[in-house]
């Protein structure tokens, strides 16, 4: 045989072997999985219900943990039972007539992922843990964030004393002893005046320290979701990477922070099984990366946060994409420091209410994807009235008249700095500030300088009273008018100070206290809220600007997308056809 022939045979043999090996590998390799892919720019911070307070953390928990109540899937924002058998009301005896006791009836048979039962003592354990565990963690390690949702549980009986003592102990160890803290904790958790009481295996009573009607909404919030005591310890937050022992429609299969999370149907879930076996959530760096991923078809659903231009482009391309917009309870507004001149003069603030141009912001910056807002209570929520619309239609002459009364003129202009923060509220913020400036300067009596600071510094600055006028936004803690009035306008509790406005109106404080005790959707409460909003429009401590919307873009093959005011984005209803 010639060498040439040997070479040819060798090449043929190698080729056949290579092709065979390749074919073997390809044919026996696991096939690509059938999954539904959701893209987002949001990031989780924790997967511990006692600690979860940012959007994505809560969202993961909502899809994996059963809460006591939940929001109706029809999107009307009404509450329905989840772990409970019925939504407590005064009519059915779930809420006592004095508003001080909530009796919760649990369904039987609900379990965690590992089969451990969810019963009355689990519920007590979890609520107590939400009051306590986070605070122990707040000091060690010191780097830990302090914005944990424990403060929401303050109205529960004996919780207030404990939380207060604990905070005092942390802030000033000399004046509060550890013994005092332990004593108040014992009072809260086991004493005669305990907050959460186990009645029997399926009945729990929550005792309130004061009547507080929004409490029923908290039953749908993740910080009251029962947790598995073997996984969630009282003395520490759960590390992000470990199992959360799911009780909801999905369980977490893979979690690589910043890269992807994979949710798999939870076989032990007591409710209707999730539509898709597996949902993958992919994390993108920013809105443009998310938009590109949607355009290429790598993801099936893009939820939070596309910029307005991208959303508009997708919504006009109806052949390839479906775009859906829903209401949101996030509001944006201008804050006045009510203590510093000249903004301590009501007439100046009222003049701004006449001069501001909401429609130009809504149409120019947001391409009409958001709605103008005329009260602090968002439109669509119980008690909302369009107070600023009725009182101040845009009127430059009226603004000029008020400014003249306050001592300003075209030669003696009101000069001030309008502050904004460039990242937290998205890339649109500088444009908004510019439009506010333009609208105010149309009076000819105002001269605005724009300045910005990064969020962490910004937050410090306004709380120290260093800004006179600045842009701010509010992501609600619970969907109730209380959350849009109490923190903003209540002076005695330090609410208005925490917003850098220092608004003080004692009659408003009284009205706010009153509405929290009135039945949640009653006409009396609506009246009280209306009075509060009248005072708001008269005093203008804040200038409401717009109410954001939530937007989702998805492939036409996807169904089951629900956008409602609760902001609860459900993965378990999504389906690929």
């Amino acid at each position: 045989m010639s060498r040439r022939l040997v070479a040819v045979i060798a090449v043929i043999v190698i080729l056949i072997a290579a092709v065979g090996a390749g074919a073997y590998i390809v044919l026996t390799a696991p096939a690509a999985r059938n999954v539904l892919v959701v893209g987002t720019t949001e990031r989780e911070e924790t997967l511990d219900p006692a600690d979860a307070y940012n959007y994505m953390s809560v969202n993961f928990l909502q899809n994996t943990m059963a809460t006591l109540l939940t929001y109706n899937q029809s999107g009307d924002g009404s509450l329905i039972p989840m772990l409970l058998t019925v939504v407590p009301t005064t009519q059915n005896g779930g809420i006592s007539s004095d508003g001080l006791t909530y009796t919760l009836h649990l369904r039987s048979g609900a379990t965690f992922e590992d089969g451990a039962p969810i019963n009355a003592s689990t519920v007590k354990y979890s609520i107590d843990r939400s009051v306590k565990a986070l605070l122990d963690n707040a000091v060690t390690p010191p780097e830990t964030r302090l914005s944990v949702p424990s403060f929401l549980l303050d109205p529960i009986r004996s919780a207030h004393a404990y939380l207060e003592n604990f905070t005092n102990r942390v802030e000033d160890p000399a004046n509060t002893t550890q013994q005092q803290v332990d004593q108040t904790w014992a009072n809260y958790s086991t004493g005669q005046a305990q907050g959460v009481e186990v009645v029997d295996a399926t009945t729990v009573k929550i005792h309130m320290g004061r009547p507080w009607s929004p409490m029923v909404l908290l039953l749908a919030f993740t910080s009251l979701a029962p947790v598995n005591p073997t996984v969630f310890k009282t003395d520490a937050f759960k590390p992000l990477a470990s199992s959360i022992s799911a009780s909801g429609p999905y369980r977490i299969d893979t979690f690589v922070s910043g890269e992807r999370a994979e949710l798999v149907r939870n076989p032990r879930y007591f409710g209707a099984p999730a539509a898709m076996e597996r949902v993958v959530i992919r994390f993108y760096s920013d809105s443009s990366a998310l938009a590109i991923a949607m355009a290429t078809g790598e993801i099936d659903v893009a939820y939070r946060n596309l910029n307005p231009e991208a959303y508009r482009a997708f919504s006009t391309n109806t052949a390839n994409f479906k775009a859906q917009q829903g209401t949101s309870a996030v509001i944006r507004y201008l804050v006045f420091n009510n203590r510093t001149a000249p903004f301590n003069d009501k007439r100046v603030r009222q003049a701004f209410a006449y001069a501001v141009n909401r429609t130009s912001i809504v149409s120019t910056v947001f391409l009409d994807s958001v709605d103008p807002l005329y009260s602090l209570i968002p439109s669509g929520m119980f008690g909302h009235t369009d107070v600023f619309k009725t009182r101040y239609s845009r009127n430059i002459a009226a603004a000029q008249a008020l400014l003249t009364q306050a001592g300003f003129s075209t030669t003696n202009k009101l000069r001030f700095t309008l502050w904004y923060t460039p990242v937290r509220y998205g890339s649109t913020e500088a444009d908004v500030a510019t439009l506010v400036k333009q609208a105010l300067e149309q009076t000819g009596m105002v001269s605005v300088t724009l300045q910005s600071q990064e969020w962490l510094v910004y937050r410090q600055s306004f709380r120290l009273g260093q800004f006179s006028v600045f842009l701010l936004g509010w992501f609600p803690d619970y969907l109730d008018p209380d959350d849009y009035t109490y923190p903003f306008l209540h002076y005695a509790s330090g609410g208005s100070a925490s917003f850098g406005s220092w608004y003080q109106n004692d009659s408003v404080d009284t009205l706010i206290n009153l509405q929290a005790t009135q039945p949640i959707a009653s006409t009396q409460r609506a009246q009280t809220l209306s009075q509060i909003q009248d005072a708001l429009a008269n005093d203008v401590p804040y200038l409401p600007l717009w109410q954001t919307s939530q937007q989702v873009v998805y492939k036409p093959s996807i169904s089951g997308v629900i956008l409602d005011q609760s902001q609860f984005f459900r993965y378990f209803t999504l389906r690929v056809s």
Partner: protein
Amino acid sequence: MPRTQASLRAYVVQRLLLTGPMVLILLTLVFYFLRAAPGDPVGAILGEHSGPLADSIRRQLGLYDPLYVQYVDYLRRIFTGDMGNSIITQHSVAADIAQRLPATIELTVASMFVAVLAGMLLGVVSATRRDRPADVISRLVAAVLYNTPIFWFGIIMQLVFAVQFRWFDSGGRLSAQFAIPPRVTGLYTIDSLVAGQFRTFIDAVAHLILPALTLGLVLAGFFARLVRANMLQSLQADYVEAARARGIRPLDVFYRHALKNAMVPVSTAMGLTFAILMSGAILTESVFSWEGIGRYIFTAISNRDYPALQGAVVYYALIMVFLSVLIDIFNAWIDPRIRY
């Protein structure tokens, strides 16, 4: 021959001995700059909470200690691997970095491969066809690449190859359709092969292509200029002249004699380029949603996540020191003239 080996050994020992002080100087600089920078770390951590609480936390962080006590504590913590906890993720910084490092290594190595390959190609083409159209074009391409902003280039790559042609995904390290391979090295390309998941491997490589091209091509411009300059120099050297005179084939002269010698400065530059690569990785990782150290540093900076930033910078610095030692030793090995 034994003499050369002995001198190489001496060089390596000397080089390693020098590394100690070098690391110390580096860590000192990091310590100094992070403390000299404006902004109070406790204010950044607590935000609205100030007063007595901030005071007690400053005490816990040791910020009231004299600077030398803080410094010693800082060094102790680095050498015990305890970099504190990130404010944002709340994990230990060391664990955060360990999780993200493989992603950055995968990207950096692939980019280096692209950079060297494309750079050499352009450089050699230029040098061999000096002042002819091919040279002019290569030089132009190199200059354009070298001056291209990575951020912009990355987005253009996405728009062309991901959105327009749909050849690749626009970002991420793996398609959602593939499960992440069991972690061995954390490099998806290697882990998928270890697990025998061939299709996952192909998918991981496909996801590497766009970011590696983006980062690699920008650096290729730099290499092309370097290779060209060095090639031209060595082509004029006496030994090349001599080789030509002996009648050795031009191609052999070129590759065996000229190119080999031109590579010494290039390989030195490769070490330095790793530093540029790492900083380029911050932008590339952001554009391609590539969850590595670059993106971690980016988030740490924008959130004033002081422990995370300090930790990541220290790790970066240590990696750079390690690489430069490696490159120096490699150079000393290929070029016996390099000695102290």
